[in-house]
């Protein structure tokens, strides 16, 4: 399995998600955590960009971070929801890990 990337910044505040999408290899997995979960939502300025990215990457989002922020009901269809155990599984099943800090 290729690399697992995490993005923890809101796409409305920082360019972290853009950099990850630009430099992650197609076919790798991107997990949105912490403020990064705002990128997973329907009806925003970046929704189309994420839907496009879903053609090239497996996109996952950390459910407890969605719930904490009150946005768990707005996730773009097709984005995979994982809990912390799922996060661990993703790290274990990919060959390498990169946190986009």
């Amino acid at each position, binding site marked *: 399995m*290729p*690399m697992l990337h995490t993005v923890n910044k809101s796409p409305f505040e920082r360019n972290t998600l853009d950099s990850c999408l630009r*430099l992650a*290899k197609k076919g790798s997995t991107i997990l949105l955590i912490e403020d990064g979960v705002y990128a997973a939502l329907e009806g925003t300025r970046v929704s189309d960009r994420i839907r496009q990215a879903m053609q090239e990457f497996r996109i996952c989002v950390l459910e407890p971070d969605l719930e904490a922020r009150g946005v768990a009901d707005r996730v773009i269809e097709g984005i995979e929801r994982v809990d912390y155990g799922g996060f661990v599984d993703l790290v274990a099943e990919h060959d*390498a890990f990169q946190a986009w800090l």
Partner: protein
Amino acid sequence: MGGKVKRFMYVNRKAPYGTIYALEALEVVLIAAAFDQDVSLVFVDDGVYQLKKGQNTKGIDVKNFSPTYRALEGYDIEKLYVERESLEARGLTEEDLLVPVEVLSSEELRELMEQQDVVLSF
């Protein structure tokens, strides 16, 4: 320790001085040099500003650590990569940088990242 040599990549994405990440990332790299692993440094996004020539920190009374990048060669750290897109987006060219680097396209950098065992991003 023994065993195989791992490929370590240090990804620098933040500008110097505004936060401490650039300086403390450099401190990690200097220690890493002693471990006989395969080390490469990447500068993308605002990280490219770490390598800008002519840094003068007298006025802010903060240690200017930019000369350390020139000393890396002495630690056998010779693989420094800069993303062309990041340079261009900031109106910089290779001549603006204080140390020789290899400028890579996003495409080339993507391939290089994929080959790493351990990636530390600062």
